[in-house]
């Protein structure tokens, strides 16, 4: 269970450029839940995700992983519990290292790096098995340099890597946004497959309302640094993109037209 308790994040506090990115987020994500997060640009989606990962320190509030208070724990100190896939396919892997070396790095997440060889035949066998599930023929390219693979291939491997070790939460930061539609669909399919198989707890930020409703078990929408609404269970099943847009306009309550192209296009 991940619990956010009144988390506030302010950038450049006290300066003219002060930005209150999160204005008190209360959120509980029970184990096994797959939360999708939507919201317009600057709503605080990525800030929330990076706060959970530890890249950003909250100005006030509390963050708990089960009973463990991680509010002041560094990003590196949290990695035993936090797995991530970035938006940029190049960011999640090392381009000048091989596929198996990258996977060995992810296999070591949350463990102390010792002076034993990072790779051995048992691990290679494990990696090969995992890669087979992607159906991309990568199981025969363990020793290929990561930089030679396509963005979709790299993102698929990043996903596998994130699930090599158990985690309390998997953070997906618009991980299909930089891919072409066909590859994005494939990566989403692999995401669902891995999440289901390993019963992962997931938080996925997305710009696409369609994606937010089609995947996962719960959807939250963020606006101006707060959770604006929270859809789950039966209620969520009956929602479609249009309802979501209406809800969004209503919740803002200012009669303002929805002007975020990305949200509409993503639908």
């Amino acid at each position, binding site marked *: 269970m991940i619990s956010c308790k009144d988390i506030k994040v302010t950038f450049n506090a006290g300066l003219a450029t002060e930005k209150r990115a999160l204005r008190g987020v209360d959120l509980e994500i029970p184990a096994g839940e797959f939360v999708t997060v939507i919201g317009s640009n600057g709503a605080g989606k990525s800030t929330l995700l990076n706060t959970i*990962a530890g890249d950003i320190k909250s100005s006030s509030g509390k963050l708990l992983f089960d009973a463990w208070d991680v509010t002041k724990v560094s*990003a*590196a100190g949290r*990695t*035993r519990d936090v797995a*991530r896939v*970035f938006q940029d396919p190049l*960011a*999640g*892997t*090392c*381009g*000048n*290292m*091989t596929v198996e*070396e990258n996977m*060995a*790095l*992810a296999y*070591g*997440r*949350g*463990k102390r*790096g*010792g*002076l*034993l*060889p*990072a*790779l051995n035949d048992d691990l290679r066998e494990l990696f090969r098995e995992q890669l087979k599930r992607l159906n991309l023929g990568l199981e025969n390219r363990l*020793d290929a*340099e990561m930089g030679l693979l396509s963005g979709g291939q790299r993102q698929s491997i990043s996903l596998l890597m994130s699930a090599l070790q158990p985690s309390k939460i998997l953070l997906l930061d618009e991980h299909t946004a930089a891919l072409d539609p066909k590859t994005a669909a494939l990566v989403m399919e692999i995401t669902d497959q891995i999440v289901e198989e390993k019963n992962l707890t997931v938080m996925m930020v997305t710009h696409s309302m369609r994606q937010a409703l089609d995947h996962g078990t719960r959807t939250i929408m963020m606006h101006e640094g707060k959770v604006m609404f929270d859809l789950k269970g039966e209620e969520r099943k009956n929602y479609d993109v249009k309802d979501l847009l209406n809800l969004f306009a209503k919740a803002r309550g200012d009669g303002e037209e929805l002007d975020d192209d990305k949200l509409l296009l993503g639908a």
Partner: protein
Amino acid sequence: MSLFSFLGTLEIGLIFGLVAIGVYLTFRVLDFPDLTVDGSFTMGAAIAAALIIAGLNPYVATVCAVIGGAVAGMVTAWLNLRFNILHLLASILTMTALYTINLRIMGKPNLALIMEPTVLSPFEALGISSMYLKVIFVAVVVVLVGMAIAYFLNTQYGMGMRATGANARMAQANGIRIKQKIYAGLALSNGLVALAGALFAQTNGFADSTMGIGTIVVGLAAVIVGESLFGSRSMLVIIFSCIIGSLLYRLAVSVALNADFIGFTTSDLNLITALLVALALIVPHIRREQKARKAAAVGGEA
């Protein structure tokens, strides 16, 4: 080239193989251009020479030299990581400070080690001529160190170090403590360079306060020569290509200096080295451009 000067070239080439490995660790593995080595090479020589003259066992003196180099590397890392000083500048600061420190360690600008015992002394009883003994000893040390470093880079810790240089964000997301890796990497690199300095002082019989000038360029030249000859992903091959690169570089320089018709003298060495490094950097760049142009042409047809 006489046999004597050939063996001398081999010996120095092998010793600078250690420098090349050190430079590879910072420039390539950690992506941290570190110029501290100009100072830590001299420091290794200075500590070893001063301690041997003070009566310490040469092996103990050499270990102290390595530790001294490692500390110098950590000072550079500290300046960069703790105070955000640009890595190049941080290393230049350490290098400059080391010049004074090395003079203090030696007490005068140079020390002679002619009659003192060295790491080679225990083997002199074997009856091999010292000309060959030096080369064999240095070769064994360099090969052992090379194998150890290649092994290290394939361990969990070493791979974390490589990831730190290749993609720090990814490394961090996988729980790798990147600052710790940078400290360790700079310590290891400068420790190796100091070892090279200590061996150089003992095989050549002197330590001099200016002997480290240009070490970085020579190390870089060796790394680049090695890289352009072997394009492998295997750490063992990469590390040994640094050593071979260093040997080839020394041989090339020695041939150039010995060829009377070219008319080079030793004072031209720095220019030759700089040109060589520039050339080695330019060639792959041009090749990449050509490849990109070709790829673009193919893409245009399709």
